[in-house]
């Protein structure tokens, strides 16, 4: 699990339960998952997280074995400060 | 006591509703059709539901779903229709649901289907065989009670004659000892509790992988053994001194009973044994009834089905001969020449005369 100053989220991966299906890899929009070189106790590779997670939860949705827990951080990306109530931004 | 003239089909429908049946599904087929018609007419007024199913397979399926929610529910058909329901019969028995099934049969040729079952695996149904509409009213209500008491299907074996003969009957509601609440019934209420239900015939449990059906099926076998011990029912008529015992079931037994009484009045030493439960077959009672008999004659309207159970029960102690046979009308509905007191008398007299016993 990697924390990076630019990440808007992160995931906890149950690597020992992973069956190595690789559905999460192309499902991740910022492409920050890659399959490991090592193998788990089931004998298959498992996903590892690279920097840049957005916390979107796509991996969680496509994993048949419920291996992902997704955390979304308190972050306001630059240029997107919250609009005060009642004010409309052009 | 108010008696009303009604056909057996109507009497059975009234009795089922009096017993609390609130769901019925069926597919029309002679001679079951009128029972379906009567339920369609009467159930809604009693707050129940009757559905014309798209086939017998769906009829028993709908009844299964209704039973699963804890309702008293029944289905029925004639032999061919029940043949389609057999897979569900096996599994409903394993799911321990209190199904009541009515076979309005075309004669007595469905005895094997009823007592051996045409489904897969080890299972048993209680089978009740009324001989007239009055008894059908009592046995229909008993069927619903036994089904709930044992959590097991009960089959009521009727036929064309019973369905279509009008008799004076009283639909008196019978009372039975109290039953435990149906805690197993599925109503959705345990969702999200971690203890939600899985009503299934395989022994599956929530939160556990795999099925492991063997211990579950053995427990069912023990239950069926207990049913066999406690539920035999029969009628025994003038048998202690009988040299010939006639064995008959259902509506044909009424003819036999009439003829046996007639012959007794003329001095013949003949008796009648009438199984009321076809399963469990009242073997012990039959052995006792035939203790002094020299011959046992089985009068059934088929190629020889109940005679197997008679021979098994008597264990070779007394010669057993068939005096019935296949007998039907031109449409195959089972109203054949055998359903005639003179014909029955000829058959029984033939058994009284000394002759070589074959088989």
């Amino acid at each position: 699990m990697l924390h990076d100053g630019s990440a808007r989220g992160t995931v906890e991966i149950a690597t020992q339960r992973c069956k190595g299906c690789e559905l999460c890899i192309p499902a991740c929009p910022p492409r920050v998952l890659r399959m490991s070189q090592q193998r788990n106790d089931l004998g298959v590779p498992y996903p590892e997280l690279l920097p840049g997670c957005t916390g979107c939860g796509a991996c969680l949705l496509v994993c048949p074995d419920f291996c992902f827990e997704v955390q979304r951080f308190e972050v306001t990306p630059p240029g997107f400060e919250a609009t005060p109530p009642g004010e409309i931004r052009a | 006591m108010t008696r009303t003239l009604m056909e057996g089909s109507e009497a059975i429908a009234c009795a089922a509703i009096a017993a609390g049946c609130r769901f019925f599904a069926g597919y029309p087929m002679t001679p079951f059709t009128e029972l379906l018609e009567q339920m369609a007419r009467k159930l809604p007024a009693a707050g129940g539901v009757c559905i014309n199913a798209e086939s017998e397979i769906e009829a028993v399926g709908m009844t299964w779903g209704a039973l699963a929610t804890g309702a008293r529910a029944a289905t029925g058909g004639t032999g061919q229709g029940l043949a389609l329901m057999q897979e569900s019969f096996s599994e409903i028995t394993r799911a321990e649901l209190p199904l009541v099934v009515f076979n309005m049969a075309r004669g007595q040729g469905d005895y094997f289907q009823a007592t051996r079952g045409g489904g897969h695996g080890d299972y048993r149904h209680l089978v009740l065989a009324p001989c007239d509409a009055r008894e059908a009213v009592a046995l229909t209500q008993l069927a619903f009670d036994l089904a709930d008491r044992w959590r097991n299907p009960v089959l009521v074996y009727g036929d064309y004659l019973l369905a279509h003969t009008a008799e004076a009957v009283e639909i008196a509601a019978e009372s039975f000892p109290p039953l435990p609440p149906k805690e197993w019934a599925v109503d959705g209420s345990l969702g999200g509790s971690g203890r939600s239900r899985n009503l299934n015939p395989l022994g599956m449990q929530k939160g556990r992988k795999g099925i492991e059906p063997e211990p579950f099926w053995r427990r069912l076998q023990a239950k069926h053994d207990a049913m066999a011990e406690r539920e035999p029912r029969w009628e025994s008529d003038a048998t202690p001194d009988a040299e010939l015992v006639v064995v008959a079931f259902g509506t044909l037994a009424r003819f036999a009973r009439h003829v046996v009484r007639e012959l007794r009045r003329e001095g013949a030493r003949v008796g009648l044994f009438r199984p009321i439960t076809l399963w469990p077959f009242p073997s012990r009672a039959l052995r006792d009834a035939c203790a002094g008999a020299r011959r046992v004659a089985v009068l059934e309207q088929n190629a020889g089905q109940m005679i197997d159970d008679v021979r098994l029960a008597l264990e070779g102690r007394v010669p057993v001969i068939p005096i019935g046979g296949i007998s039907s009308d031109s449409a195959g509905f089972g109203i054949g020449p055998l359903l005639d007191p003179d014909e029955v008398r000829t058959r029984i007299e033939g058994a009284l005369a000394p002759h070589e016993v074959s088989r």
Partner: protein
Amino acid sequence: MKSVRETLPVKPALQLGVDHDLCPGCGEPLALRMLLEAIEELGCAQRAIGVVGIGCYTALSPLMDVDVIQALHGRAPSLATGAKRMRPDALLFTLQGDGDMVNEGLQEVLHTAARGERITCVLLNNGVFGETGGHMTATTVIGQRTKNSIEGRDAAYHGHPILIGDLLAQQAGTAYAARGSVHDAAGVARTKRLLRRAFETQLDGHGFSFVEILTMCPTGWFVGTAKGPGYLAEVLAPVHAMGELKRDGRYVSSAELRAARKT
């Protein structure tokens, strides 16, 4: 160290665990997640009754924390009919595969829809009998290889697939019918919206509702797990087109949905 605003849990609240023996890359658990979340979001956990058919997904029923009745192959709609008639306030759904619903149980589901029974039938369609090892069903598409169409389904020899979504949507008793898929995250999310609409149709008393969910079966399709989503999109989805087939009384055929996607 950033603070966590929200955690998306590993599994839905109505799921009793995550351990199952379905194949790597199987799409059925994805549909299960959406089904359980839809029930929970609608606040129906304590009135939901599921009737489960026979297929690989049967092994998922021990994980479902809602009251469940196990049916025989093909028979779930009739059980659901009887149960709903006795418990009209319950949220009744079936969970069936294509072998179960479209082969064994075609008559049953068709009549249930025609009668307008207020239940929701959920179809997990992977175009094969998965549990027996990958055999042809009524929804297998032309050209698809299975263990009993090893050269590919041939229209002249094996006949044509049945578009069950269309068949059911055409019935007057069907109030809502839709087809979705779980081959990508967007599809999975859309599946939950379809399930919610189907359940709402039932809760509003409008008649029969149906959701068909195309799922991956790489084992039954003889492809690697990573190729499953692509196979679904390229082989099954062009035939069993995705979208809403029946809504507000209007039937839109698979052919029209397909044409709309192309434009």
